[in-house]
């Protein structure tokens, strides 16, 4: 357990030592090019997975519920996004 914690802290420190993003220049360049809105997609997937896994025990059920939650969350957020874009366009 102690060695695992040490490993986690080692990774954290290794990530934080270089200043700013250029920890790995290729990934940093890629991250710069991705539009900000796409950074929300992994969060939707994460929230769906955690919601599903806290409601089920069976892996198959977790997979099914993850897709279910992702569709719902994505749908709601997508609807809000479209509404905001439309309001902005009309204004």
């Amino acid at each position, binding site marked *: 357990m102690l060695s695992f914690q040490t490993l*986690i802290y080692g990774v954290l420190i290794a990530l934080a030592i270089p200043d700013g*993003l250029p920890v790995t220049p290729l990934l940093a360049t890629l991250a710069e090019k991705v539009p900000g809105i796409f950074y929300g997609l992994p969060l939707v997937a994460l929230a769906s997975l955690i919601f599903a896994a806290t409601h*089920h*025990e069976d892996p198959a059920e977790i997979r099914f519920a993850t897709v279910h939650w992702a569709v719902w969350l994505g749908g709601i957020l997508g609807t809000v996004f479209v509404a905001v874009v439309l309001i902005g366009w009309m204004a």
Partner: protein
Amino acid sequence: MTKPTPLPLQRSASRGNFQSGQSRPPIGSRIVAVSPDDGSAIDLRNPALAALLSWCLPGLGQIYQGRTQKGAIFMGAIMATFLIGLWLGGGKVVYASWKPGETRWAFVCQAGAGLVALPAVIQSRHLNGSARQPLLPIAFMAPPLSAGQYVSREYAESLTESDPDIAADDFFDKPPLRQFRGDQLSIWHRRLGKFFEIGTLYTMLAGMLNLLVIFDAWAGPLGTPTDEDRKRHKNATDKNIPTPT
């Protein structure tokens, strides 16, 4: 997924009154939850300890309860999100600050991720304490310096050497300390741009979702059938009619 332990369905009186046996559970009986998928019992072992473990390291409580696959899912998903957020934010987005006007409320959510956020508290206490410098030799998870803040000479020199945005003349010499005359938070925002907010969001969400994981370790899966659900299910089974979902 680990096969749940086949235990009699019992739950402590203070946490759900779930009983399917004819007799009351004996004092000291094991606390179990019920799988919403197949109705099997899940041994929660010591729920409080499991919840604490899940706070310390996401998913560790579930692993302690024998739900290793689920624990691995939680650990991988939440730790990956937290670390990616920390990386996107250049290692600057997780810090604790309780100074008036500069309170870092995001840390309240980030702290939900557990021990991985603990260095921020330690660094903040040491930087604002008598030492005037963080405990760790680097500025990892240390709060940003504000204008007029006093720091130790060692920390000022370390910042000057490691941070390209901070020069030696950004500090007034006030022996035995040095006084910062810039605003480090503004420097971070200027350098990181949108990634400061994105990294903050990732780490906050990781911490908040870990609260669900902690609850799962403490009380079992959400959506566990209630007494009413079981009565309805039993009636439906007795009458041989489909169970309403």
